């Protein structure tokens, strides 16, 4: 397993991961912050990294897998260059968020949770950013776009190459 991690990531990245394990892996309740930091660093938390955390920290691998698979924040797949999150909260639903989602699905031939083949976009549906005053909302790479329409979404996404 370690070999897989070595192929996927650079020595420096793995060193950083080890540092994080050292910092959080031995604290009570440190597992989720640890995984959050690792995901920020690598973009995702594949099984090989989970195994590395388990081996070093002594936290059972099944518990780590259990946590990673439970929380929607964690991903076991690498992400594309840009992350599109279409809000599917109630206010956005009322204001036509579904139409935006369908438009993206048609345009890029992807379903929620998938990435485009060219590695440009990862597309997700999320529940409520709390920016309901601007519904429907789409978030691209953390930037919030409000009052999005089926027409304006193409223009917004064209800025992300």
């Amino acid at each position, binding site marked *: 397993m370690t070999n897989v991690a070595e192929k996927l990531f650079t020595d420096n990245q793995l060193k950083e991961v080890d540092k994080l394990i050292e910092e959080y892996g031995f604290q009570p309740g440190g597992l989720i912050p640890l995984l959050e930091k690792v995901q920020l660093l690598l973009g995702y938390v594949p099984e090989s990294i989970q195994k590395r955390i388990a081996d070093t920290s002594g936290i059972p691998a099944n518990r780590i897998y259990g*946590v990673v698979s*439970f929380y929607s924040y964690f991903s076991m797949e690498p992400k594309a260059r840009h992350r599109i999150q279409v809000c599917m909260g*109630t206010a956005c639903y009322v204001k036509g968020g579904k139409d935006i989602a369908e438009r993206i699905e048609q345009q890029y031939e992807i379903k929620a949770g998938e990435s485009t083949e060219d590695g440009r976009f990862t597309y997700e549906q999320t529940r409520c950013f709390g920016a309901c005053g601007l519904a429907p909302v789409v978030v691209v790479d953390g930037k919030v776009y409000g009052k999005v329409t089926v027409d304006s979404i193409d223009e917004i996404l064209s800025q992300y190459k």
Partner: protein
Amino acid sequence: MKAKTIAEINEIKANAQKKLYPQEGEIKIFVHMGTCGIASGAMDVFDALKGEVKDNNFKAAKIVTTGCAGICSKEPLITVAVSGQEPVMYEYVDQEKASAIFKQHVMKGQVVKEYALARGMQSEIKQRIENKGRMEGQEIIDDTIPGIEDLPFFRLQEQRVMRNRGLINPNRIDDYIGRDGYQGAIKALSSMSSEELLTVVLDSGLRGRGGAGFPTGLKWKFAAREGTEDKYVLCNADEGDPGAYMDRSVLESDPHSVIEGMIIAAKAIGAHQGYIYCRAEYPLAVDTLNKAIKSARSYGLLGDDILGTGFAFDVAVYEGAGAFVCGEETALMRSIEGLRGNPRPRPPFPAHAGLWEKPTILNNVETLSNIPQIIVNGSEWFASIGTEKSKGTKVFSITGELNNVGCVEVPIGTQLDTIVNEIGGGVCEGKTYKVAQLGGPSGGCIPKQHMDVPLDYETLQEYGSIMGSGGLIVIGDDKSAVDIARFFMEFCKDESCGKCIPGREGTTQMLSILDNICEGKATDDSIDKIEELAKVIQKTALCALGKTSVNPVLSTLRYFRNEYEEAIANN
């Protein structure tokens, strides 16, 4: 920085109070920047104003940032306050308008009427009403612009939890102190016993604002009885109900009020460590909270010996990782422990065995934010508004097909009609009111014929809805009731933690029947099946989220059974 004494905090208060408003010869420009303000372009407006100050070398103008001003649909908003004159709030500001406002109003003292929303500030509404629409010592420069108290959106609110919004900079602890901030904590730590605190909170009648409405004082009392020093105060900021963002608004605009509430709670139950569990989808709130905690520590308001009173308490922010179920108290505690967020049966209740099996209280953001003022002003003051069984105010985030979308705080018992048609400015043009959904996926809807219903815990239940955490979404009649129910059921199915069978399989089956109805594949007994299944889930699901997941279905069935029947008949 050296920790402060109580006398020093009071000194800061006296100075900070004056500085909130423009000093002689000064012009303050408040840029209201919550998450939604920033998303609408408040940062560009801020940059444009900074640029104007620099380009014109106009040093009398001070640009201040605050959290959300409340009326999100009119953002970006700024307020220009010239000393000695009435402040003016501008709506839909962009870079161009900001520059125009700067050149005309800030530099020449002429209000730009076409961009103006109102005269005056939210924090002054009460005084303005008493003073017949003006403030002493403030010259009115254009009385053709409505006073802020003339706008129903603002006039009909009773701002207690939101009292500092639009005025203070959330990242400046002095601003909060200038608004009586930390006076509740000072009083609690220096002159009140645990019993006295419990009595005041109990007498106030404050009930949990997260939705269940359990008396806060009682919850505290149970935890206070436990004979150990190893206890925890938790703040539930995992605001997962879609369409609700009251807590985000409080955290982003007034984070210290929550921290102060936690200090008081800690003293009342005898705890020394607190956690704020905030969802990761709220990066600005997390950042604001962390800054606030840091500055509270530097003032000695958190730490080993708070303000020299000998009381020790500290707080840390814990970021959630995206699971709706973690808003449920036992699941939230498992999550802080680093486990999957699975709820567990109660008893034991958290007051006895909560986080790490230690006595724990969990309060919602808005609940905690109410506490400091209850301690400062007393339980009678708090109970002076509201209904017989539900005292104080409730913050709602009003969204959907409404003209005015935003966060509003009203006395409990305010009619739905007042919120929708007066504060909310009515339903958007071209749409007709069908229902308002309260309480999100655990709640129910209120149809047109019951718009006179007063919003309080008990009455809403009679009508098949709940108070919930404060999400109030107005839905137009172009949406079918079955589709609304399906939307919420899909949400509950997706967010089920998978532990209990009613929660996991029950919601899946419910959704499948609703899908069938929407897709014309239903059978004649579909409604019967839904009702039977709903009863089973209500009785047998492990946690409140599971039990209440059927509410949107039952409530749409109650008021729009005909739509279900028609959908089935049209097969």
